[in-house]
């Protein structure tokens, strides 16, 4: 497995602006200031369209084989068109449910992972569709540790 390093800006929480640039002890601006860029904001990466993007939390471990775990944060973009291979949130039996969209021959199906549940034919403009899951965020806790949930309110 290979990894590409990504340069992360210094640990400032606010984007740099001329008012907030740090100054050297002499009071003169640091020459490095000219090269500063705004830090990378993960939210902008995950949320391309704020108006149509919603967050949910996955309940249940039936999709664990596909890397979707109980408690994972789901990033859902309602503006995306569902295509085979997408994981979807759909309203099934009055409940927000996570299933995979699959194509078999020419027909699309909502495919459950839980044994005993039926595969459901999926139509174009199916009104059970809630949105397409574009990312999941999975915490990696140590043994016996609870996965940390975001605690701030914003």
């Amino acid at each position: 497995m290979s990894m590409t390093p990504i340069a992360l800006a210094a640990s400032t929480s606010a984007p740099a602006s001329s008012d907030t640039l740090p100054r050297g002890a002499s009071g003169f601006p640091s020459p490095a200031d000219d090269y500063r860029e705004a830090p990378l904001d993960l939210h902008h990466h995950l949320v391309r369209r704020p108006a149509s993007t919603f967050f949910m939390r996955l309940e249940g471990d039936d999709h664990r084989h596909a890397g979707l775990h109980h408690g994972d944060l789901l990033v859902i973009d309602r503006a995306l068109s569902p295509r085979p291979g997408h994981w979807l949130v759909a309203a099934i039996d009055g409940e927000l449910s996570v299933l995979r969209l699959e194509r078999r021959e020419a027909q699309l199906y909502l495919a459950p992972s839980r044994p005993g549940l039926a595969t459901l034919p999926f139509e174009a403009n199916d009104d059970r569709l809630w949105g397409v899951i574009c990312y999941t965020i999975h915490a990696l806790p140590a043994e016996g540790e609870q996965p940390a949930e975001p605690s701030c309110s914003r």
Partner: protein
Amino acid sequence: MFALIDCNNFYAACERLFEPRLEGVPVGVLSNNDGCVIARSEEFKALDIPMGIPTHKIDPTLRRRVVLKSSNYTLYGDLSARVQQVLAHQVPTLEPYSIDECFLDLRGLQEDWHALGARLVRSVAREVGLPVSIGIAPTRTLAKLANRQAKAQSTRPQVCVWQSANAPELAAHLARLSPREVWGVGERLNARLAGMGVLTAAALRETPDSELRRRFSVVLARTASELNGHPCLSMSDLETPRRSILCSRSFGRPLSDHAALAGALRHHCQRAGEKLRRDAMQASAIGVYLRTNPHHTGTFRHACEWTALPFPSADTQQLNRAAQRLLARLWQPAAYQKLGVMLAELTPRQQSQTTLFDGAEPARREALMEAWDAIRARYGRQALTLGPQPGDASWQMNSAYRSACYTTRWDELPRARAR
């Protein structure tokens, strides 16, 4: 051309978005404190449960068939902003009109209006998940009427276009419509119009302009002109500008203790100050009112007092000091049900002065309030408060059936079940 977009049964639709089991079920949304029904789904309307009915007066057999929700303005406000964002991407000018309506100014566009309307309705349904209807017409007044027609359509998408003021279907519609149904014509104007034989919206738009100006007002003459397809009203003509602010709430249970009331008052002053600063306004006068429950036995007490502020201010502490003095004067032992703070004579915030002695807010107070707002925005409203807030929050709202703040709180995200 102008368009009015309105979210159908907005509050009920917001509740359904994250609770699909409510689809097809009669849903009613309750006022602050769960007092009465303020919004209804179509199924709820079909049961003939009227708007405004006190919650405890709903027939028990019907009560079992419906789902009641406490109002959740945090959720509704977030979804309303999303609807506006989706629309703003597609049209040049958008003017929000209320939490669930906005006008689009389509002047300068050359479009197939039906196609544009259908596209807007579909994109809101898809991207936000809420049903909307749209009326498109040459003026705002006509667009509002067209929207009502669109809502009456049983087919989807609900779009009604009146290409011109002379469109035959529009003329036929106005001939059946009471003037009261027209934007800006109230009950009183309607009665006076009836007195001079103007019984329909069609008759109103045929009344000579000079006569309307002479016998009524310029605004009504403009309304008639709008019905004839000439845009001449802006939103500010019909909306009273924000000249006052009111922060009030009924208590969950009656309060009589002066200290508890003072705590509730501090809370309201905080909110009033935040509203002022958000709108870059300052207030010159402040009022406090207190009242007991008018439906309960015992002496009814309603007390209200105003005072002028030493200088126009948007400083929460300044507002609170004045308000607490008023409360001390008003308070007598009684079981109070409601307390409110009112601000009046709002003016745009002046450039700040540097000293205390020239009758303006000192700059360092403004800086303090900026820091105050920033801290509360970042760490939550409980992080920094004006004095202790009552711990048991006995004066806080009853909202027994509130849905989660699905889109604004990490710990209240909707759950989606793996299948």
